[in-house]
């Protein structure tokens, strides 16, 4: 019976839940979303692909000619690559709606401007 009062009070208020695809809660600062690479800062050291616990980062080529392939379907957003990068070239964004039906579309490629 002690919950009845609470339940009745709640009955006349608006729901706590958000209608998700239409209403979105803003994510806080420092949220770990999809990481992005700034290829102007990248020196191609390969640390990010070496430390990645889930093998989500692939380096194609060597040094300053290298490209980065980021498989976001494998990424677990631990942000270890951001921490290990010696040039602060990687940043975690606030992007989190990354679900999809096709794994091949979940590849993000970062190339250098020549």
């Amino acid at each position, binding site marked *: *019976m*002690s*919950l009845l009062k*609470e*339940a009745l009070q709640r009955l006349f208020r608006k729901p*706590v839940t958000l209608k998700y695809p239409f209403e979105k809660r803003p*994510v*806080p600062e*420092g*949220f*770990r979303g999809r990481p992005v690479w700034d290829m102007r800062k990248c020196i191609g050291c390969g640390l990010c692909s070496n*430390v*990645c*616990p*889930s093998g989500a980062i692939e380096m194609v080529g060597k040094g300053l000619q290298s490209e980065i392939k980021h498989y976001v379907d494998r990424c*677990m*957003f*631990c*942000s*270890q690559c951001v*921490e290990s990068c010696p040039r602060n070239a990687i940043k*975690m964004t606030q992007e989190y709606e990354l679900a999809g039906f096709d794994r091949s579309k979940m590849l993000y490629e970062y190339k250098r401007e020549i």
Partner: protein
Amino acid sequence: MRKVRYGSIIKVPFGPQHPALKEPENFMFEIDGDIVVGVHPRIGYNHRGIEKAFERRTYLQNIYLAERICGICSDAHTTCYTQAIENLLGVEAPPRARYIRVIIAELERIHSHGLWVGIAAHEIGFDTLFMYVWRDREVVMDLFETLSGNRVHYAMNTIGGVRRDIPADTVPKIKHGMDFLEKRLKYYLNVVQNEQTILKRTSGVGILKPKDAVELCAVGPTLRASGVKNDVRVDDPYAAYDEIPFNVVTHDGCDVLSRIIVRCEEMLESINIIRYALDHMPEGMIRVRVPMAVPPGETVSRVEAPRGELIHYAKSNGTTKPERYKVRSPTLGNIPALCKMLMGAHIADIPIVLAGIDPCFACMDRMTFIDDKTNKKWVWTMQQLRRKTRK
């Protein structure tokens, strides 16, 4: 075996589809009429080969693997892992990092126990309480998101400290959240102790006597609800628990009701710990740099996870990868006690008694052998394992 009263004993399988919480595990019950007279747990449905995976990754990568042993006590596992590796390396986390570890661990305890109280209410068919508890638990989840950048896998711990500081401007936010939660939790404690729906379903159900609890090596809130004062935070202090005053909550009801009360009171105690830690947090650095390779050695590390005592064992061989890693999660420690509790229970009480230990089968399953050709499953004894390792 007890004397048969109603004729023959019927075997009733329970699970592997979600016997209690939403995790697979199988229990074979021997039922006499409506009473359980025999319990045979069959574990191993959720074996993921995590310990082998530990041996193939570097120490740095293993932090995130340890975190994923369990979704709910993810911080307890990383604390235990980093403690073990820090022990092998001979380094110690700076004081501020140790306080931050306490704050995160206690926030996690609130969120885990809150989740459990909701599940317990759902198991006895009291979904109103389930909804309200989970609504208020969101406060903790939001705090986690602000502090660490993720709701579930906080990734706060690293070898040699923590990865993120708690900035001064979030401290009032945490304190505000704690004030709100304290008010709500006191209300729920009152609801649990007075609401007839809960009392009738839980008091006197799933009795575990203190003597049995100790003999069967029960851990955590299950043990404390049988009136035994046992907590790793006090018995073998880690992080900054030796500098923080707090009470070990016990209750001598020995039944499911006292397990609910113990968890509710522990949440209130956690709020006090967080407040104290925020006020007494020393200034300074939050991590020390550590080398990639770990010198040879072996160590055991213990942590009081929300569900009880968690033990990690690590053996290093001087390279950047561990040679052997072993995890003993609290649910495994509680399974023999659970079988004792279930004896003599009614069929209708099985779900709430099962849920009473706050089982986390995903944490627990990591040791069965399966021959995929003949579909045969077996478990090795210690001698057989030793023989195999010597070969």
